[in-house]
């Protein structure tokens, strides 16, 4: 009984005193950060593509995504296109996402392309 009453209070304290940003799940992160260019369905046809000189990758295509290892995908998400000799238009997300969140996104991308 006692424990049950204390738990919510403890949880509230955590809520109030935690200053670090919370980890989010891959689907929410994909919507918040990636939709703008890679599109609502991940096919590379996002809101922003009209005036972009290099088109975002189609994440639903096994052909476009299959050649990359998980380590490559992790690197390009964290450090951006330039880090793998690709376009500067693919941004680095290392300040927005933790390593754990990026690993989750790599798994999410594998589901989108149904490859690997």
């Amino acid at each position: 009984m006692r424990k049950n009453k204390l738990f919510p209070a403890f949880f509230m304290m955590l809520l109030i005193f935690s200053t670090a940003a919370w980890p989010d799940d891959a689907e929410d992160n994909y919507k918040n950060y990636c939709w703008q260019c890679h599109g609502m369905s991940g096919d590379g046809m996002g809101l922003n593509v009209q005036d972009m000189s290099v088109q975002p990758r189609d994440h639903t295509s096994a052909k476009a995504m299959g050649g990359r290892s998980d380590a490559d995908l992790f690197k390009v998400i964290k450090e951006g296109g330039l880090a793998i000799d690709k376009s500067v238009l693919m941004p680095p997300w290392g300040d927005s996402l933790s390593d754990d969140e990026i690993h989750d996104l790599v798994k999410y991308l594998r589901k989108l392309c149904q490859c690997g």
Partner: protein
Amino acid sequence: MKYLLLFLGFTFASATLADDGMAILQKRCANCHDLSGPAAQSVQALWQRKGPDLFYAGSKYNREWLEKWLVKPRRIRPAGYHYIQHIKPGKKRDMIDAATLTPHPVLSSDKAEDVAEALMKLKAPAEMMGAAAFKGGSISVSFGEMVFDKFNGCMACHEIEPGYGGLSGPEVYTAAKRYQADYLVSFISSPQAWNPKTPMPNKHVAEPNIQKIVQYLQALAKENWDEKK
């Protein structure tokens, strides 16, 4: 003595203006804008905010712009706030779902002055602003555009003139009218210090280039866009 009275009178007047402004903010603005901070700490919490945070307004906006815009607001983010709530799939790409965008509430010029007075008192905590400062100087629009677009890929999400550029972020051709130069330097060097879950990435632009970008934004803001639209 006369001066003291004048001084007291002045501080009193400005304090009541700000009080009136704060009352309006609480009543008419707080349901969409956060006035006390901190910024959203999760993506879901960010999506629940119906407008940009205003709890650091005094460190962000140019007062003159605020007073004008509140009387005659016009869209700043082509796809609204938050962009994911105002788009739909289209034939060639995702499109802005205009039916979901609503006009911004309008204030009378008296009220706008009170509100601006109150907003300018809301300063950012020092850790948000950091040591960033604009050092002055100027640059041509064409060289500035190279730094902004070619070298750093900022145009992917930002329009650099009406109808040209990305749509998920705010238009930048009026950014220097809206925002203080030091804020621009600080935000570009660390968007996450201001808003940990902002869809804008930290592109780690080298400091001298951040200065050039802000010079470019100032050059853009000098053009008369309303006439060109």
